[in-house]
């Protein structure tokens, strides 16, 4: 691997991890859409500041973009406050307005400025190694890496220091307010960092796909754990993994790096939705199925206890008889009988089914509830 490639991967991993860290709280606050709004609206700040500083990875640029991001949040809340529109509609109204002003500004001055709309929208990691930070003639590596690292560290410090406050204000804002931890203050602090993070991710994934890194990894982590610290850590790992794997995929298929990273993050989420141990679709389906069989077996036992003659008849050819008595289909009946046998509620002796004492007590318990 060339040093340029290593630099690109480093930037991607750092930015992805930083996105996921802050995105975790967006997911928990059900504010995924806000990250989309912010990452688009910051374009306006970037364009305006670009007229002055002529570079994307710079401190004034980040400040201007962050200000626009916070402005977005403020405008959204202003609109929601009028009670004329709901939050999702307010978000949908505010960010296209700010974003379109940015787009018009770029197109009006496209001849004069070196700010490609594709780069803003989709990012261009391949350019990262060319814009380098040099101090006193010393090459310190790509500017984006330093920007990404600084933002990542700020995010990390913020989450570590205010972990308790973030958790409280996210879980129960009214208790936070009652205890004197202003949820509004915490909300704006968080949104400021979302804006900063969105800007620092621009060169890596662009404004459209940054949402992929902010939301998909924490959403996957959310499905995998019941503990917030684990969710934070796992989200960061998944994000970093998506960045690395995404780069490899892009290299292999000679495709867009940002697109590949977001795709990998999305695929990981899709797989998690399917196979997550507790909350995944498959395990939920299995659980429901197990409950259905168990309930059916309990129903069967109650039926057999209530109708002593039914056991008499069903004892010999249980499947066929139960089909008649309970209107159950054959494969289902077999599964239920198998389950009841496993639980030792029914035993087969001399080719006949018998209710065990365990089975009788199940019936007693079931009919009691």
């Amino acid at each position: 691997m060339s040093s340029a490639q290593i630099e690109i991967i480093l930037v991607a991993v750092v930015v992805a991890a930083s996105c996921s860290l802050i995105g975790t709280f967006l997911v928990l606050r059900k504010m995924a859409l806000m990250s989309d709004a912010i990452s688009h609206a910051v374009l306006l700040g970037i364009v305006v500041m670009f007229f002055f500083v002529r570079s994307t990875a710079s401190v004034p640029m980040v400040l201007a973009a962050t200000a626009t991001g916070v402005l977005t949040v403020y405008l959204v809340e202003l609109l929601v406050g009028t009670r004329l529109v709901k939050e999702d509609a307010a978000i949908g109204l505010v960010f296209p307005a700010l974003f379109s002003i940015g787009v018009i500004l770029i197109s009006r001055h496209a001849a004069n400025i070196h700010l490609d709309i594709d780069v803003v929208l989709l990012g261009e990691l391949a350019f990262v190694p060319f814009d380098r930070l040099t101090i006193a003639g010393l090459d310190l590596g790509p500017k984006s890496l330093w920007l990404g690292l600084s933002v990542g560290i700020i995010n990390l410090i913020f989450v570590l220091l205010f972990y308790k406050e973030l958790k409280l204000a996210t879980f129960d804002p009214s208790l936070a307010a009652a205890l004197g931890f202003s949820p509004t203050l915490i909300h704006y602090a968080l949104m400021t960092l979302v804006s900063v993070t969105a800007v620092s991710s621009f060169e890596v994934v662009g404004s459209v796909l940054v949402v992929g890194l902010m939301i998909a990894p924490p959403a996957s982590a959310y499905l995998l754990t019941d503990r917030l610290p684990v969710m934070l850590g796992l989200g960061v790992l998944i994000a970093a993994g998506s960045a690395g794997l995404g780069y490899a995929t892009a290299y292999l298929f000679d495709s867009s790096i940002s697109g590949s990273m977001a795709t990998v993050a999305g695929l990981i989420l899709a797989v998690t939705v399917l196979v997550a141990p507790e909350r995944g679709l498959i395990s939920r389906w299995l659980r429901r199925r197990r409950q259905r069989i168990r309930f059916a077996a309990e129903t069967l036992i109650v039926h057999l206890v209530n109708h002593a003659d039914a056991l008499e008849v069903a004892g010999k050819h249980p499947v066929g008889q139960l089909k008649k008595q309970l209107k159950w289909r054959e494969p289902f009946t077999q599964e239920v009988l198998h389950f009841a046998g496993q639980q030792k509620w029914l035993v087969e002796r001399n080719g006949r089914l018998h209710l065990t004492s365990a089975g009788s007590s199940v019936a007693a318990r079931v009919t009691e509830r």
Partner: protein
Amino acid sequence: MTDNGLALEIRDLTVAYQEKPVLWDIDLQVPKGVLMAIVGPNGAGKSTLIKAALGLVPAAAGQVLIHSRPYLQQRGLVGYVPQRGSVDWDFPTNALDVVLMGLYRQIGWIRRPRRREREMAMESLNTVGMADYADRQISQLSGGQQQRVFLARALVQDAQIYFMDEPFAGVDATTERAIIAVLRQLRDAGKTLIVVHHDLHTVSEYFDWLTLLNVRCIANGPIDDTFTSDNLRQTYGGRVAFITEDGELPDDRSRTDSKLIAA
């Protein structure tokens, strides 16, 4: 300002959402050491009254005093149990952690809970009979268990006055008994409890003080003086069917075991 012995005093409180008054000119005096129900129909402003008292919604006019001082100076005296439905129970945390949140004000900004706080939270969970569920992810608790966790979180605040928004809503009978036992214990320890309640059947059994609310304050005082058919009719606008054991109206406190059904 001198202490007038009142746990909660509300003077001329009006709360409005967009010029639509939700609470109109409320005057309320609650002495220390009572177990008070706030009762009224839907949209009467019961929750809003609590939220206004805690400064969670702004007052258009008027004043709320807790132990003779404004709330902002008395935060340490106040415990709050919001409605169970007001939070997301799928949040990735466990019961003990939720109870610990009640101690965050004492712990302060940035600092983390320590062993002492953990022990306090455990003790509080134990009081509401939930010690065995400390490590349980909160989404795996039943509605009643979740409500008890909320109660434990308020207990751990060791407040002087508690505001509880519908603690009995949608809980099982075991939980209801557990909660009322804890509330009585607190009252007997001299605390004041202000509870939004929706079940007229149990008002006179559970509470010793009552505020009847329907945007305006209809009545406020000891249960025996306030829980009358007259007041209830005023509060519910005649939409109450009064049924007693022997089919009579509970005229002004001649009976205490009257059963009432809000229609």
